């Protein structure tokens, strides 16, 4: 690093900050290239098609290849973005293919494709405008090229399914025939483009089939874990099981002579890796390797110690951020009736089905990585930092990750490790794969928290005051300390915002105090699909039911009485209540629960129908999920995300916890970190109620309402509130 120029250092640092900030949820500015002669018009080989603009490549057979910058990891973004481009392009959807651009290409072209990071349910909601303009600009250029060829005014042309026609002269020509000429037409000013009214969409907004299903059915889809490169070796790794600890020593002689083993390598100061010709040989040799760790003496030893640390936060004199109106503490003290409860949620692991992995290949003047990444630009930055090579000597190749859920975003720890190992084998690809046990032992876990809730009711059972104090770990303190402002961290209060937009609380009370008290531990934390909305929705929505019951009111009616200023929250709540026939008698033993929340711009609500047997066994029969994401882009994929969110949320509610013992994680595989199976999946009905006046996300928001709806139904069934998770640790009756 020392011999690099200050200019290189500066540019890389700027870039790293850019990607980190993006990972924290900031949308970056984007400008389409207006200069027709710019390098953005590289014409690729004839059989690969012609690049009309950065988003659209057209082949002579009329295939439209749409470039995708965001990551597809199951959530359907690739198909959704292609729909948005194709809608404006007016091409034949049956001839659409996609191509994932690399971060090196994006950097070389001054980020013509904008942000690549895919988290915070941003894949579509923060790129819809420029991708649609990209499709529209390409259409305008294709039409202009045809007009030039026919020497007619462009205004006389029409286009449908990629066929341009001129009615007066009865001429037609396909996109593939004019693409080369279109690429030379000056690009229109993006600001001059009028986009279609979403209500007139033909391709976007529909329940169109995914573009990427076929190769998931026959084993031909290649994930990074499946990738094989010439001369490649494989690596298995163990990092100190106590977070913050270090590697002390290992005895390589004990694995001498094992077949295929190439060597044992220290990785940074806390890990050790075995490299072999195959991964299984590397892993089994690593398991046989005696390792001595230097454990972190400052680690919290147990769950109980962490719980006590959080509980102490309830009595702290100051907080780390709040929102307030009136005087909630005083109002509760003077209230006719008060309700108090303490809730708790545990650390959770992401447990993506494809474990963490990365292939790195490093030489003196080039570093390459193959990474399943939610943020390929963060991967590139990590590759540059770890290899010591400037960004323009680095490239990251993408394969769609086998699940992400927030684990594969800004941190890129596996890239750093793979590069550290690969430096021992110049110009040789090293495929690092984490075992499931390593994956579970070294996650960036969903932060642990507890919530002290208090409410005051007047004589008539009206809510006059609400006081919420959340004590728990901060994601920003661990990953993005620069985002903390004066020690304040409002991100941990996600979903309780005053302002409308991203994550607004949908209730009003004359006196309200919602505050966060930071209590960090040695356990790494990070965004976990839904981030803080999941826990915060459990606290707020379950407590709302408790307060409603104390007030002697129906939970739905009680909520409605607080939601007069929040019409979008209320509308989706009403929609699920109607669909689930709230209030209509259910079969004996079946009970309902309801919840609503706003996150990632999207308004969600759910009704759960459950029964609890005399032995305390829970069965979730049915869930109705309602969602208003503003502009729905693919109705079937929204339904798929809602269905998936039920499995993701219920898994956490039923089983999810990462206990800490001796400073380390103890649930290291699916035998102890249980995941819900098909037999436990309720029937899910999704209703989509768009209002077309904003753009919300879909990959995360509905998870937040799943658990509280189920817990409220359990409360209705048993008469007892559920205040801690997971349910497997509780006796329900």
């Amino acid at each position: 690093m020392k011999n690099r120029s200050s200019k290189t250092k500066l540019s890389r640092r700027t870039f790293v900050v850019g990607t980190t900030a993006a990972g924290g949820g900031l949308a970056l500015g984007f400008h389409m290239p207006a200069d027709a002669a710019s390098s953005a018009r590289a014409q690729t080989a004839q059989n690969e098609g012609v690049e009309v603009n950065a988003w659209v490549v057209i082949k002579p057979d009329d295939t439209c290849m749409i470039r995708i910058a965001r990551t597809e990891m199951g959530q359907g973004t690739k198909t959704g973005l292609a729909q948005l481009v194709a809608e404006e392009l007016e091409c034949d959807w049956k001839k659409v293919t996609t191509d994932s651009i690399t971060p090196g290409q994006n950097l070389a072209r001054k980020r013509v494709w904008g942000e690549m990071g895919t988290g915070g349910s941003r894949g579509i909601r923060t790129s819809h405008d420029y991708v649609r303009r990209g499709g529209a600009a390409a259409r305008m250029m294709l039409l202009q090229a045809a007009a030039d060829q026919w020497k007619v005014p462009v205004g006389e042309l029409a286009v449908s399914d990629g066929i341009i026609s001129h009615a007066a002269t009865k001429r037609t020509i396909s996109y593939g025939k004019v693409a080369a000429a279109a690429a030379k037409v000056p690009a229109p000013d993006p600001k001059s483009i009028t986009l279609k009214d979403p209500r007139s969409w033909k391709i976007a907004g529909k329940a169109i089939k995914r573009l990427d299903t076929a190769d998931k059915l026959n084993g031909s889809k290649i994930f990074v874990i499946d990738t094989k490169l010439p001369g490649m070796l494989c690596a298995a790794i163990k990092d100190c099981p106590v977070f913050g600890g270090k590697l002390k020593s290992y005895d390589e002689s004990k694995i001498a002579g094992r077949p295929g083993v190439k060597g044992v390598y220290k990785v940074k100061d806390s890990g050790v890796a075995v490299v072999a010709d195959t991964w299984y040989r590397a892993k089994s040799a690593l398991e046989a390797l005696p390792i001595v760790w230097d454990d972190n003496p400052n680690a919290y030893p147990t769950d109980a110690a962490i719980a006590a640390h959080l509980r102490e936060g309830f009595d702290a004199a100051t907080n780390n951020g709040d929102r307030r109106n009136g005087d909630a503490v005083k109002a509760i003290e003077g209230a006719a009736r008060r309700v108090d409860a303490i809730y708790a949620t545990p650390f959770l692991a992401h447990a993506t089905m494809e474990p963490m992995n990365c292939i790195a290949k490093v030489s003196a003047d080039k570093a390459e990585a193959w990474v399943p990444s939610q943020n390929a630009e963060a991967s590139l930055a990590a590759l540059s930092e770890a290899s010591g090579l400037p960004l323009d000597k680095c490239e990251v190749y993408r394969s769609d990750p086998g699940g992400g859920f927030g684990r594969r975003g800004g941190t890129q720890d596996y890239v750093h490790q793979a590069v550290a190992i690969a430096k021992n084998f110049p110009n040789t690809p090293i495929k690092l794969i984490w075992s499931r046990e390593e994956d579970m032992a070294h996650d960036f876990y969903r932060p642990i928290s507890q919530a002290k809730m208090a409410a005051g009711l007047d004589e008539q059972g009206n809510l006059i005051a609400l006081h919420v104090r959340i004590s728990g770990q901060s994601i920003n303190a661990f990953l993005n300390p620069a985002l903390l402002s004066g020690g304040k961290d409002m991100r941990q209060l996600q979903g309780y915002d005053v302002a409308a937009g991203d994550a607004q609380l949908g209730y009003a009370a004359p006196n309200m105090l919602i505050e966060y008290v930071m209590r960090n531990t040695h356990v790494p934390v990070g965004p976990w699909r839904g981030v803080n909305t999941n826990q915060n929705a459990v606290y707020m929505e379950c407590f709302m039911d408790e307060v409603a019951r104390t007030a002697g009111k129906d939970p739905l009616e009680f909520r409605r009485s607080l939601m007069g200023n929040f019409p979008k929250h209320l509308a989706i709540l009403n929609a699920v209540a109607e669909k689930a026939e709230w209030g209509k008698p259910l079969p004996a033993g079946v009970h309902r629960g309801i919840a609503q929340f706003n996150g990632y711009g999207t308004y969600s609500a759910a009704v759960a129908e459950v029964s609890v047997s005399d032995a305390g066994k829970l069965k979730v029969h049915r869930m109705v999920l309602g969602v208003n994401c503003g502009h729905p882009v693919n109705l079937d994929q929204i339904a798929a995300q809602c269905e998936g969110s039920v499995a993701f949320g219920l898994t956490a509610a039923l089983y999810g916890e990462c206990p800490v013992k001796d400073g380390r994680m103890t649930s290291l595989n699916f035998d102890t970190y249980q995941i819900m199976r098909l037999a436990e999946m309720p029937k899910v009905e999704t209703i989509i109620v768009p209002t077309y006046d904003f753009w919300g996300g879909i990959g995360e928001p509905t998870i937040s309402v799943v658990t509280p709806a189920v817990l409220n139904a359990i409360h209705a069934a048993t008469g007892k509130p559920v205040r801690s998770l997971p349910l497997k640790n509780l006796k329900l009756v």
Partner: protein
Amino acid sequence: MAKLNINGRVHNVQVEPETPLLWVIREQVGLTGTKYGCGVAQCGACSVHINGEVMRSCSIRVGDVKTTDKIVTIEGLSPNSSHPIQKAWLAIDVPQCGYCQSGQIMAAAALLKKNPKPTDKDIDEAMTNICRCGTYQRIRTAVHMAAEMPAGGKSAAVTGQKA
């Protein structure tokens, strides 16, 4: 040294006998559709058929596989993704990330072979693979749809694009 019959082809592989069949399939034979998810027979991403039975290949030592055993992986389930399960999966857009789906499809295909018209309860009991994206509802629907298809034939219900 092991001799394995995989998808109708015999493979001679040089490997330690304690190596799990999963890793031999992936690393020595080079068929990567069969996935590693847990290594302890919990998740089912490694599911293959051995003599028609669905088995979790991560927990079978290659040394315990007989040369007469007929192993079928996702790559050998059908030519051209034409198995009714694959067609139903396409029609319903079951997969999300797709990583677990090879195992899900192999488990579902084995179920239909034994039980051509499974009930919901049969599906509950047979389909124990983990899907972290949560495609369970569509898996159930697709198994029922596949059960309605004539075996090996075409179904008007299947109109998935880009088949």
